[in-house]
């Protein structure tokens, strides 16, 4: 073999080797940039973002974005190499992972969004129930500025929660509804605490004693007696120890407390008697049976409250507590008097006289709106 031939064959072999080293990677696809995979991953990430997966499934979405970036960086690194040394397998894997993570983020995001929408709806529903209950309690139990303010605040938080739900901001809606529920629960606790005196066993025992004594005296003297049960909005007329008639009655606006001082709008609790009967024209409210309020016990209670700092020194007891007409409104509205409808007062007027005992109690130890409320609010949640 001539030298020239050997040289030519060697050249051809080298050319073949070079051709193979460049052509083989291209032919097998190892050196092909994974543009299709990249486009698919890019589109999947964009779809996930439009579906707010970045908000609802942030970790999975970040994994997709990071995998995509890693794929891009790997692509850049491979492109910087000579073709025989290029290998886009890793970049392709990264784009594939990015696409998978993006579609998973979209799925997780949808699920998280639906879950939060459902939780927000549930919390809104719960808050509505608690607010409704708090409104009912506040209607029954007079509360101060702060509980009233928190109840109003809870209503507005609920309103904001509903607005956020409409805008798809379910997590904000959930938070606002939770605020609403928490404020309303606070109000319920406050009203429950205020109503809890109706469950005070010592007080209930005292009320029962008063009623029992009044009934016993009516029986013994074969006389009339009146028992007013505040939480039942009821006036019972006893004759010879037996209930002859019951009337619906409206009480003082400050329904929970016993009267302590003038202007507190509470109906007093204690044992009284009728001192005067006012006919038509003599009373501002149709007719009236005037009671001997304040009695000694009332004076003692206010003096005690002043000593304890529960009432300021300048406060007086007030007077003119009556059973009068213009009542039957179905709400407690008076300054402390007991108001009957004019028809009922006409009826009662004829059955009692000056000196008839009038016993006013908060409750009779049985069921009543305040004791029921206090019981309900003190019960552990279901």
């Amino acid at each position: 073999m001539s030298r020239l031939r050997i040289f030519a064959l060697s050249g051809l072999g080298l050319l073949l080797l070079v051709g193979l080293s460049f052509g083989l990677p291209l032919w097998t696809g190892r050196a092909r940039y994974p543009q299709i995979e990249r486009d698919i991953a890019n589109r999947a990430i964009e779809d996930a973002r439009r579906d707010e997966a970045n908000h609802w499934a942030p970790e999975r979405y970040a994994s997709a974005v990071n995998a995509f970036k890693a794929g891009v960086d790997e692509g850049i690194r491979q492109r910087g190499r000579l073709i025989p040394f290029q290998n886009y397998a890793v970049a392709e894997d990264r784009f594939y992972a990015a696409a998978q993570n993006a579609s998973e983020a979209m799925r997780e995001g949808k699920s998280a969004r639906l879950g939060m929408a459902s939780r927000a709806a549930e919390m809104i529903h719960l808050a509505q129930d608690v607010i409704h209950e708090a409104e009912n309690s506040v209607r029954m139990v007079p509360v101060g500025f702060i509980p009233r303010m928190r109840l109003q605040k809870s209503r507005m938080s609920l309103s904001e929660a509903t607005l956020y739900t409409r805008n798809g901001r379910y997590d904000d809606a959930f938070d606002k509804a939770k605020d609403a529920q928490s404020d309303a629960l606070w109000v319920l606790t406050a009203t429950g605490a205020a109503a809890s005196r109706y469950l005070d066993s010592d007080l209930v025992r005292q009320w029962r004693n008063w009623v029992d004594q009044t009934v016993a005296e009516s029986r013994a003297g074969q006389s009339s007696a009146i028992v007013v049960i505040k939480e039942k909005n009821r006036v019972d007329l006893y004759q010879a120890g037996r209930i002859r008639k019951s009337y619906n009655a409206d009480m003082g606006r400050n329904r929970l407390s016993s009267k302590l001082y003038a202007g507190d709008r509470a109906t007093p609790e204690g044992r009284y008697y009728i001192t005067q009967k006012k006919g038509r024209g003599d009373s501002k409210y149709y007719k009236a049976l005037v009671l001997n309020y304040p009695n000694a016990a009332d004076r003692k209670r206010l003096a005690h409250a002043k000593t304890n700092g529960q009432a300021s020194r300048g406060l007086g007891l007030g007077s003119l507590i009556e059973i009068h007409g213009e009542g039957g409104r179905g709400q407690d509205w008076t300054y402390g008097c007991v108001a009957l409808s004019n028809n009922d007062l006409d009826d009662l007027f004829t059955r009692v006289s000056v000196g008839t005992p009038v016993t006013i109690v908060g409750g009779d130890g049985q069921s009543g709106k305040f004791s029921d409320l206090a019981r309900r609010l003190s019960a552990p949640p279901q």
Partner: protein
Amino acid sequence: MRTRLFAALSLIMMLVLVASCAKAPQDQVQSAQASLKAAQDAEAGTYAKDAMANAEQQMAALDEEMKAQQGKFALFRSYGKTKELASAAQAAADSAKNAAQEGKARARDEATAAINDAKAYADSTRTMLEHAPIGKGSMTDIQAMKQDMATIMMNLSEADSAFAAEQYNEAKAKADAAKSSAQGIQSSIMQAREMARGHH
């Protein structure tokens, strides 16, 4: 010999010249980055989400191209495409900024309208409360409603604060809630009027 040496030197100089011509368009890239930052500062992420995402994608493409060129041997670098991508990224970022400003202005207008509306309702409710029928039975209700109004005014004040902090969506939600509560009080006053008429 001298001719060959001269030719070699000329070739080297030409190569150096070509290499120095392929200079990265740093100014354009920095300008695009500044535009993207301006879009972020204009809260495009909140008020123009899609436009912002597009700008970020364009910026990522530019970044990729820059890295690709920098990874090449100096003689093979070409920044023509980089310049195009830098222009596109800057345009997208500017567009995102404009969209954000428009979106924010829209949100501000909506919040302003909601706050003004709620304040008007609050004012008319307070006027109604001043002239509400006060009797022995309704006085406490009126006082309670006045307390509720005070809370509504607090919510409106929170709406104002949110507005001042440029949290327009929150400001609108608070104002809408205040308005809805004021409406509730107005209907209660109407009911009280009806009741008062019924008693007389």
